[in-house]
Each structure stands twice: as C-alpha cells, then as structure tokens.
C-alpha cells in the first residue's frame, strides 16, 4: 500500500502543489485522481459525487491529467491538439483553433508549429503540446505532473502564465501541480502537500 489515511481536499479555485522526493508517489497520486489507477481502498469524490458514480470519460473530460513524459500520436501537432475533440464526450464541442494559435503565440511560436510532426518534437516541445491540449479541453481541474520539467526558463514562465490565465477564466477551476522546484511550487500554488511526510 502506498498511502494510509491520505485525506486530501481540493477547493474550487485552489492551486495545490505536491512536493516530495522521487519515488514518493506524486505521479501515482495524480494518476489515481485521474481515474487511471484502480483504487485498492478509499474513495474519490468530485463535486460531492463518488468517482464510481461518474462515467469515467465524462469525469476525465473535466479532470484532465497531463503526464510528465507525454506520448503523442504520429501525426501533425494540429491533429494531436484536435484529437480529443473527436471523442464522444466532446461531440458537440468544436476545436478552438483560434485559442490554440493564441496560446502558441504566447509561447513564442507561430501557427507553422501546428504543421510540424508531433513524433519528431523534442521532449520540451512535446510537453508544451500536451499542456496546450489539456488547456483546450479541461473544464474544471488540471492534474499536471511536472509540466515544465523539460522546459527552459522562458517556456516555463510562458506555461505558468497560460495556466494562470486558464484558472482565472472561471472561478471554480483548480489545479494540482507536482514539481521538484521549490521556488516554482511557491510561485504557482496556494498550498503545498509534501508526500512522504503524509502517512
């Protein structure tokens, strides 16, 4: 068992940071919250409703997890960004191309970036694409696993700004962010949970 008596609540509008040494279970915690790992014991509630009573795709359309090393399909960046809008859960949601271009511009990339092959991107660029895609689809909560780990200072600042803007658009939006970088944790969160200290 990884945790005992782990009691974690995320308030509307809250930005929670999760710190802790490598191997302390930050990733497993985020994956569990995203419903990607089967729960051995305990319950997850979202909007006061147990996860088991949610349809998993509907839940994951609102609570979006971004892995640290995202795997992108062999296709163009535009297709990768567009792919989640083909799922049934977003059937009547059009792909916000304009917003995607604005986000890219904020990160210093023009729309030519959309035509690049996703499988040939560097680790940092793939991470940018994965975070952008999550920003385009997530409606309520973002679960970000070291989203700037492969990025330089400039790109990190750009991603932090975009996430802050996403949070600011609607007051109920919240995010959980893991990082090794203490100064970043202080910058982007209201509260820090240190795993390993929690029993």
């Amino acid at each position: 068992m990884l945790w005992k008596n782990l009691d974690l609540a995320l308030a509307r509008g809250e930005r929670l940071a999760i710190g802790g040494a490598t191997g302390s279970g930050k990733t497993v915690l985020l994956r569990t919250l995203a419903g990607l790992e089967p729960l051995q014991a305990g319950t997850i509630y979202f909007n006061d409703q147990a996860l088991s009573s949610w349809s998993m795709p509907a839940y994951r359309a609102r609570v979006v997890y971004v892995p640290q090393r995202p795997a992108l399909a062999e296709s163009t960046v535009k297709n990768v960004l567009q792919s989640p809008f083909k799922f049934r859960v977003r059937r009547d949601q059009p792909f916000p191309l304009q917003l995607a271009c604005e986000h890219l511009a904020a990160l210093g990339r023009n729309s030519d970036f959309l035509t690049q092959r996703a499988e040939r991107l560097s680790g940092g660029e793939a991470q940018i694409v994965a975070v952008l895609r999550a920003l385009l689809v997530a409606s309520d909560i973002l679960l970000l696993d070291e989203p700037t780990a492969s990025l330089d200072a400039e790109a990190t600042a750009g991603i932090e700004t975009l996430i802050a803007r996403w949070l600011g658009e609607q007051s109920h939006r919240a995010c959980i962010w893991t990082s090794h970088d203490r100064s970043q944790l202080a910058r982007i969160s209201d509260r820090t949970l240190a795993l390993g200290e929690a029993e």
Partner: protein
Amino acid sequence: MNPNYINLSNWQLGFAAVLILINLAISVWLRLGLARSLLVASVRMVVQLLLVGFILESVFALQTPLPVVGIGLVMAALAGLAAVRRTRRRFPGVYWNSLLSVLGASFLITGAAMLGILNVHPWYLAQYAIPLLGMVLGNILNGISLALDRFMEGVAREGSLLESNLALGATRWEAAHSLINDSLRVGMIPTINSMMVMGVVSLPGMMTGQLLAGVLPTAAVRYQIVIMFMIAAATALGTLGVILLAFRALFNSQHQLCSGRLHLHKHVDL
C-alpha cells in the same frame, strides 16, 4: 479409387526425406543454426501424420458422431493453445480467450458449411468434417497468433499513448480502436494474401490433393472456392473474437488500461 492413383511405399517416403537431409547438411556446414529445428519439425511432421493416418482410418470406419466431435474438439483445443504459444506476451486468461475464439469460429463456420453448403449426410461424416475443420483451424491459428501478438505488443509499447487518450476523456473503445483495427488487419494478412495469388502463384494443397486423386480440375476448383470462403470467414471471426476478449481483459470497465496484466514470456515457440 481412380485407377491412375499411385500408392506410396515406405521407400518412396524415404527418398522424399533425403531432400530435407540435403538441406540439413547445408545448414550444419554453414552453421545456420537451423538444423535442430528443421530436424525436430521434420520428425514431428512424420510422426504426427502417420498417427493421424491410423486414427483417421479407424474413425472413418466407425460411422458414429461422438469420436468425430471428440477429435474436432481436441484439434481445436490444440490450435487454441498453439496460437498463444507463438505470442511474446501473455495475460492471465489469454489461453481461455484463444480456446473460446478458435472453438467458436471453427465449429460455427465448418458446421455451417457442412450442413448448409455441402449438405453432407450424415452430418458428422468424418471424411469431410476432419479435413475441413483441419484446414480452417490451421488458418485461424495463424490469424489469432498474429493479431494477438500485434495487440499485446501495441498495449505494451504504445501504452502511454493509449492512456493519454483515456486521460483526455476517450472511452476504452475510442482509445483502443485504431490498435484493434491494426491487429485485425495483421491477423487477416496471410488469408488475404493467399486469396489474392491463389491459382496464379500457388495451387492450394487441398486442390493439389484432389487433382492427384484424379478429380476434374473444374470440380476441384469449386471445392477450393468454398474452402477459401470458409477459411476467410472463420479467420476473420476467430481473430475478431480473440481481439475483443483481449481488449476486455486489458481495458477494464472503468476505462483503465491494465497493462500490468501483461507479462513477457522468455520461451516462445518459433
């Protein structure tokens, strides 16, 4: 029996074996590492076929349904097991999935062909049932092992891509759909290839057999067409069955990818 039919003596079988001995010698000489498996395969082939010859002669003489169905079940079970033994990865229950798919597809298609198309009387006539089932099983075996292998390799290697789609709200079906398509395509490649070139590049074994036994080519061809449709239908059905069962085993109802259920096998046939 056709008067032109030539019965083969043991001496003639021995001369045929010399053909493979030449290859064995070359393999040993050039150290190709093929000698052992070639030898084992040759001996197995001879022993299995001689045994089957004896068994079939007594089954053909029996004229009761039970032994025919029994032999069919054993053949299908062996094919189901062999299909999994050729994959690199396994998951708990994969043997049952394969057995169920092989058994269902082969009995359904062979049964339908015997009762609905060939109108065999009595329905269990071993002279038809066993060879037809055998040909269908051999092809299902190929299709299932190729498709299963592709599917399990895909889950193992592209797991994070499949999971990233799940994390973005895809249902398990949406996430796995292209991998399922690809696995079915791979499973059907040998069957489609052989239909494409049939009669042009190769004369199929069964037809060759009928021709050697003195059947008119136009009649032999008709049998071959029925057989090919049976093989294609059964392979498609068996492959679809096993991939859907594997899909349900590796993607649970909570739309989670259970790649932890897959494990690598060191000892793989072939």
